[in-house]
C-alpha cells in the first residue's frame, strides 16, 4: 500500500519488514535507471532469511565475496566497484560493522561517471572514519570536484562536506566555500548547497569560518530572486547572526521586506514554493526565526511594516481554511506559532500579545492534539510577559481540564508546565491543589518533576507558612517516593529560618506522625522538625497527652543518645521533666520502625544554598531555559523593588519572632529597620562613602532573640539574610552562619570578619573554622545563592560582651558594610544540673554574698504563659527543677557554666506575679559578674 494513499497514516500493516515474516519477495515496482541487479538480489536474499542466524550467514558470505573481489588480481571496473561498495553500505545500514571498502569508495570519488561518484560520496558520508590518509585522499577528490565547474559534481562535493563536517574538512575548505557562495556565476543549486555546507562547517569549527569581507554579500542573499537560495542562505545567516548580531544587523530590514512580500502575496504567486495554498511556509518561519535574534527594529517604517505582517498572520488564522488538508493548516499554523514567538520575544506590543493569547486560547480547545500541545507550550512563554500574564490566567480552567483529561502524557506534561508558569499569588492555592490531586494518578515519568514544581510554587507563593507546611506534608503523603532530598531539606530549612511557622510545623508533623503508616520521608522531616522545635509544641503537647494517651507509642528508657533521637519521638514533655535530653534516649522503634535508626540519628544536613536547590534541580532536569519562565516573571513583576515580596512570602525584612516583637528594646532604632521602613535600602546610606566605607553602627536587633534559642534568622534586610544555627557542648560551640543573597545580582568581594572587642579577646575565642571550608566565605555570592560559614567558639572564661560580625560586600558597585552582634552569650555554655529540693536550697544559701546575687523586678512584656516561660528557661540551658520551690507558681533552675578554666555554678529563681504582671528574677552564681550578666540578659526575655 503506498504511503500517501490517504491523508492519515494507515493503521493496517502493509509490508512486513521482518526477515521471517510472510512477505512478497518481489522486486520493487520502480527501479529507475538502476542497473545494480546484484544488489537487488542480495537485498532480496536478506529479506528471505528466516532467522537472524541465516541473515548473518548470508551477510558473511557476501562480505567474503566482496573482500575477495577487492583483493583479487583482476582490476574491478567502476560498475562492480560501485555495486560492491553499495552492498557494503547496505550491510552497514543493517547494523553490522564494516572494516573495509573505504579505499574502493574513495576511488569511486575520482570516477568521471556520475553514478559511481555519487555512490562513493554516499559511502564516505555514511561511513567516514578519521583515517588521516583517507581524509587526505577524500579532500583531494572534493577539491577536484569543487573546481570542476560542473554544478552536479560541485553539489555532490558540497553535500559530502556538509554530511561529514569534520574539522579536517573545515581546514581544507572553510576559506573556499564563501567564495563559491557569493560568486556571481555560481549556479543557484550550488549556492544553496554552499550556504548549508558553510553552516555545517561553522558549527563544527567556528574559528575557521571567517566571513569578514563576505558578510554584506551573504546578508544580501536574502534579496536573491531564487526562493531556494534564500531558504538555504537564511539558515546560515540566522546562525551567524546569533553569534555576531552587530555584524549582521542589516539583515533585519531585508528580512522584514522579504517577509512582507511573502505574507501579502496571493497563494499562487510563488508557484512551487506555495505549499498547500500557503506561500513559502518554510521561508516564512525562518524569516520570523531570524528576526528573533534581534530586538524590535528601530526604524519606524521597518517596524510598522513588520507589525503589519504580524497582524496579517494573526488575521489569516481567523479566515476559513483554503483546504481541508492537514498540511494546509499545519503550514499556516507553523507560521502563526513562529509569529507568536516573535511577538513574545519583542514583548513590547500589548495589543499583539493579547491577540496572540486569544488565538492560543482557541487552540487550547482544538480537536487536533498537536495544536493543543503547541498552544499549551507557547502559552507557557506568554505567561511570562507582564502584558499577557493576566490574559493567560483566564484560561486556567481549560488548562486544569487538560491536565485531567488529556490522553497523551506529553500533552498533560505541557499543561502542568503552563499551570506552573501562570501561577502567581492569586491562584497559587488552586493550582497547587490541582497539581497535588493530579499527582495521585500522574504518570510515573513526570512525578518527580511535578513534585519539584509543587514544592517550588508552595514556597514561592506561600501567603502563610502553615499552608506551605501543609502542602509539603501532603506532597510527601501523596508521592513520598518522589520527594527528593532537596525538597524535604528545603522544608526544614524554611522552618528553621522562619520562627513564625516553627510551632505550627512542629504541631503538624506531630499529628502527621500519629498516622498508622508514615512515609520514610515524613518520618525524616518529622524527626528534624521536632528535633529542633519540639519545644514549641510544649503548649499543645499537654493537650495531646490528654487526647491520645501516648503510653503505647512512647515509652522512655534512660540511655545516652543524641538529642535529635530523643526529639525524634517528639516527646517534648520529656524535655520539661528531664530537661536536656542528651542523657536520655527514648524508645523510638514503635513509632519509626520502618526507618533504620541510623537515618534518624544522621546529622542535620547543612544548607549550602538558600534559594534554589530545588530550582537548580528542576533546571538540571529540564535543561537551561526550562524554568526561565518563572524566573523572568519574577524579574519582571518585582521590577526594581528589592524587598522581594514575591520570594519569601508576605513578611520579609523585619519579621521579628513574636517574642522579639514585644521586647520593647528598640528605643535606639536599629539601622536596618528604620531605613527599610523609610523605603530605602540600608546600603544606600553608605554607598556614597567610597572605598573607606565607615563601619556601620552595630546592629544588635537580632541579638536578644537568641538568648533562649540557637537557630533562626539573625538579620534580614532587602539584600541579605543571615541565618544562624548553633550547637554548644561544654565550653565549646559551633555556629553555622548562612548568608543568603536575596537579590538577583551577585555580591562581589564578600568578606566577613569576626572580632572580639576589648577584653573579650581573652575571654572567648571565636574564629572561622578553617578545616571545614578552606575559604572562610566565598568572595562572590551569586544572586539567590546562599553561602555558609562555620565559626568555632571556645569559652575561655566568663564574659559579658558579644563578639561582632562585620560583613562587607559590593552590591551593584556600592560597598555595603554591616556590623552585627553575634548572639554568643554566656548562658550558651550551661550544662544543666539536676538536683533535689534539699540540695538546691543548701547551695542557694552557700551563695549568699551580696555580689554573688543579682536581682531584677520587671514588668512582663509578654503574656505570662506557663509553657512559654518553661520553654524559654529550657532554652536558656539550665535544668528546670520541679518540686523544689515551695510555691508551685515559681520556677527554679540550676546549671553550671563551663569555661575553659573553671566551672561557674548558677541558680535561678523566677517569681511571677500574675496580678501585677510583674516578675522578680534572682540569680546566684559562684562568680559575681556572671549573676549580673545573666540577670541583664534574662530580664529582657519575659
Amino acid at each position, binding site marked *: *500500500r*503506498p*504511503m500517501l*494513499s490517504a491523508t492519515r*497514516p*494507515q*493503521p493496517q500493516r*502493509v*509490508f512486513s*519488514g521482518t526477515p521471517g*515474516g510472510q512477505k512478497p519477495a*518481489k522486486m*520493487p*515496482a*520502480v527501479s529507475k535507471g*538502476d542497473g*545494480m*541487479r*546484484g544488489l537487488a538480489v542480495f537485498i532480496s536474499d536478506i*529479506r528471505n532469511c528466516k532467522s537472524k542466524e541465516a541473515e548473518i550467514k548470508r551477510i558473511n558470505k557476501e562480505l567474503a565475496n566482496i573482500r575477495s573481489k577487492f583483493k583479487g588480481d583482476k582490476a574491478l*571496473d567502476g560498475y562492480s566497484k560501485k555495486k560492491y561498495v553499495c552492498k557494503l553500505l*547496505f550491510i552497514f*545500514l543493517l*547494523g553490522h560493522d564494516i572494516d573495509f571498502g573505504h579505499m574502493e569508495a574513495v576511488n569511486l570519488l575520482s570516477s568521471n*561517471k*556520475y*553514478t559511481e561518484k*555519487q555512490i562513493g560520496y554516499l559511502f564516505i558520508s*555514511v561511513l567516514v572514519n578519521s583515517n588521516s590518509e583517507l581524509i587526505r585522499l577524500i579532500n583531494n577528490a572534493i577539491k577536484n570536484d569543487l573546481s570542476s565547474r560542473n554544478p*552536479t559534481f560541485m553539489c555532490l562535493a558540497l*553535500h559530502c562536506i*556538509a*554530511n561529514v563536517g569534520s574539522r579536517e574538512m573545515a581546514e581544507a575548505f572553510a576559506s573556499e566555500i564563501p567564495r563559491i557562495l557569493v560568486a556571481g556565476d555560481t549556479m543557484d543549486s550550488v549556492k544553496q*548547497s554552499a550556504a*548549508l*555546507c558553510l553552516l555545517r562547517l561553522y558549527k*563544527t569549527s567556528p574559528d575557521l569560518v571567517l566571513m569578514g569581507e563576505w558578510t554584506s554579500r551573504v546578508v544580501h542573499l536574502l534579496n536573491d530572486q531564487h526562493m*531556494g537560495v534564500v*531558504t*538555504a542562505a537564511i*539558515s546560515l545567516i540566522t546562525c551567524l547572526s546569533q553569534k555576531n548580531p552587530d555584524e549582521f544587523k542589516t539583515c533585519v530590514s531585508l528580512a522584514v521586506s522579504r517577509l512582507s512580500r511573502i505574507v501579502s502575496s496571493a497563494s499562487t504567486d510563488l*508557484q512551487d514554493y506555495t505549499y498547500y495554498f500557503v506561500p513559502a*511556509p*518554510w521561508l516564512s*518561519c525562518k524569516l520570523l*526565526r531570524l528576526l528573533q535574534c534581534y530586538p524590535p527594529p528601530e526604524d519606524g517604517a521597518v517596524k510598522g511594516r513588520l507589525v503589519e505582517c504580524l497582524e496579517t498572520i494573526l488575521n489569516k488564522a481567523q479566515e476559513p481554511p483554503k483546504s481541508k488538508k492537514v498540511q494546509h493548516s*499545519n*503550514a499556516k499554523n*507553523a507560521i502563526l*506559532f*513562529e509569529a507568536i*514567538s516573535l511577538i513574545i520575544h519583542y514583548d513590547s506590543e500589548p495589543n499583539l500579545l493579547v491577540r496572540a493569547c486569544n488565538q492560543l486560547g482557541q487552540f487550547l480547545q482544538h480537536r487536533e*492534539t*498537536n495544536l493543543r*500541545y*503547541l498552544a499549551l507550550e507557547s502559552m507557557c512563554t506568554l505567561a511570562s510577559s507582564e502584558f499577557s500574564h493576566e490574559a493567560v490566567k483566564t484560561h486556567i480552567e481549560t488548562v486544569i481540564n487538560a491536565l485531567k483529561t488529556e*490522553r497523551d502524557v*506529553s500533552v498533560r*506534561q505541557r499543561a502542568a508546565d503552563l499551570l506552573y508558569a501562570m501561577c502567581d499569588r492569586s491562584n497559587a492555592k488552586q493550582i497547587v491543589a490541582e497539581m497535588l490531586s493530579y499527582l495521585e494518578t500522574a504518570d510515573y515519568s513526570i512525578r518527580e518533576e511535578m513534585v519539584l514544581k509543587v514544592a517550588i510554587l508552595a514556597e514561592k507563593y506561600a501567603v502563610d507558612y502553615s499552608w506551605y507546611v501543609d502542602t509539603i506534608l501532603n506532597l510527601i503523603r501523596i508521592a513520598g517516593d518522589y520527594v527528593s532530598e532537596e525538597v524535604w531539606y528545603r522544608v526544614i530549612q524554611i522552618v528553621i529560618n522562619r520562627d513564625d511557622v516553627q510551632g505550627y510545623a512542629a504541631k503538624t508533623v506531630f499529628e502527621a506522625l500519629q498516622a498508622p503508616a508514615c512515609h520514610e520521608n515524613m518520618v525524616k522531616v518529622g524527626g528534624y522538625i521536632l528535633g529542633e522545635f519540639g519545644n514549641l509544641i510544649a503548649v499543645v503537647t499537654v493537650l495531646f497527652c490528654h487526647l491520645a494517651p501516648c503510653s503505647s507509642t512512647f515509652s522512655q528508657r534512660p540511655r545516652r543518645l543524641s538529642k535529635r533521637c530523643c526529639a525524634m519521638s517528639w516527646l517534648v514533655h520529656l524535655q520539661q521533666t528531664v530537661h536536656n535530653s542528651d542523657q536520655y534516649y527514648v524508645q523510638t522503634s514503635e513509632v519509626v520502625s520502618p526507618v533504620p535508626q541510623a537515618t534518624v540519628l544522621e546529622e542535620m544536613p547543612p544548607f549550602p544554598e538558600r534559594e534554589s536547590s530545588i530550582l537548580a534541580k528542576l533546571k538540571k532536569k529540564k*535543561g537551561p531555559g526550562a524554568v526561565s519562565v518563572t524566573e523572568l516573571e519574577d524579574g519582571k513583576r518585582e521590577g526594581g523593588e528589592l524587598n522581594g515580596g514575591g520570594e519569601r512570602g508576605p513578611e520579609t525584612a523585619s519579621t521579628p519572632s513574636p517574642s522579639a516583637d514585644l521586647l520593647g528594646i528598640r528605643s535606639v532604632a536599629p539601622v536596618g529597620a528604620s531605613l527599610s521602613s523609610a523605603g530605602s535600602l540600608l546600603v544606600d546610606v553608605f554607598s556614597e562613602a567610597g572605598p573607606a566605607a565607615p563601619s556601620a553602627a552595630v546592629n544588635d536587633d537580632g541579638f536578644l532573640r537568641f538568648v533562649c534559642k540557637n537557630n533562626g534568622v539573625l538579620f534580614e534586610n532587602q539584600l541579605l539574610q543571615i541565618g544562624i544555627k548553633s550547637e554548644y557542648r561544654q565550653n565549646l560551640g559551633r555556629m553555622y552562619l548562612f548568608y543568603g543573597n536575596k537579590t538577583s545580582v551577585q555580591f562581589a568581594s564578600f568578606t566577613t570578619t569576626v572580632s572580639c572587642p576589648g577584653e573579650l579577646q581573652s575571654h572567648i575565642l571565636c574564629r572561622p573554622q578553617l578545616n571545614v571550608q578552606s575559604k572562610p566565605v566565598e568572595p562572590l555570592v551569586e544572586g539567590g545563592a546562599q553561602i555558609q560559614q562555620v565559626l568555632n567558639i571556645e569559652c575561655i572564661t566568663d564574659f559579658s560582651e558579644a563578639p561582632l560580625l562585620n560583613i562587607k560586600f559590593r552590591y551593584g558597585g556600592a560597598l555595603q558594610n554591616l556590623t552585627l552582634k553575634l548572639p554568643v552569650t554566656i548562658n550558651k555554655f550551661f550544662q544543666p544540673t539536676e538536683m533535689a529540693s534539699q540540695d538546691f536550697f543548701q547551695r542557694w544559701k552557700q551563695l549568699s554574698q551580696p555580689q554573688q546575687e543579682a536581682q531584677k523586678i520587671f514588668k512582663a512584656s509578654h503574656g505570662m504563659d506557663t509553657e512559654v516561660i518553661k520553654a524559654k528557661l529550657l532554652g536558656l540551658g539550665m535544668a528546670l527543677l520541679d518540686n523544689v520551690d515551695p510555691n508551685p507558681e515559681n520556677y527554679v533552675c540550676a546549671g553550671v557554666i563551663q569555661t575553659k578554666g573553671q566551672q561557674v555554678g548558677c541558680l535561678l529563681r523566677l517569681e511571677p506575679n500574675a496580678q501585677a504582671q510583674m516578675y522578680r528574677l534572682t540569680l546566684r552564681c559562684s562568680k559575681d559578674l556572671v549573676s549580673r550578666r545573666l540577670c541583664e540578659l534574662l530580664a529582657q526575655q519575659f
Partner: protein
Amino acid sequence: MMQFMLLFSRQGKLRLQKWYVPLSDKEKKKITRELVQTVLARKPKMCSFLEWRDLKIVYKRYASLYFCCATEGQDNELITLEIIHRYVELLDKYFGSVCELDIIFNFEKAYFILDEFLLGGEAQETSKKNVLKAIEQADLLQENIDFQTSLFAAPS
C-alpha cells in the same frame, strides 16, 4: 536545526538514518533503539511531538513506516512535520506511489533525494519540482551509462 532523521517500520526495523550531528556508532545505535521503542509504544491519535532527552521529537506514521525527526528545543514543530510530509511526497513522486519496499531496495535513492531536500539539518530546497529535477538529471546520466555497461560487462 534537525539533529537526525530516522525511518523505521512498525516492527522496529530501521530503514533509513540520517545524522546531522557527529555521534559515535555506539551512540547512534543506542539512540535509535531507545527512540524506536519510545515511538512505537505510543498510541495512534497521540500528539506528534514529544520531548525526549533534551530534544524534541517530531514523528508521523505513513502506512507501515514511521518518519521520525529530532530537532532542537526552539525549532518549529509543525514545520518539521511538513518537512516529513514533503519528503514523503518527494519519494512518492519519484517512485510513483512509494511503499516501504521501494525504500528498502533503493535506499541509496532515498538518501540522494533527502540530500537534495535537506542539507546539514536545514531545508535546502523546498520546491518539489526543483528537487526532482536535480534527481532526474542524475538519473539521466546514470541511464546512459548503465546502457553502456550492460553491453560490455555482465552484472553478477
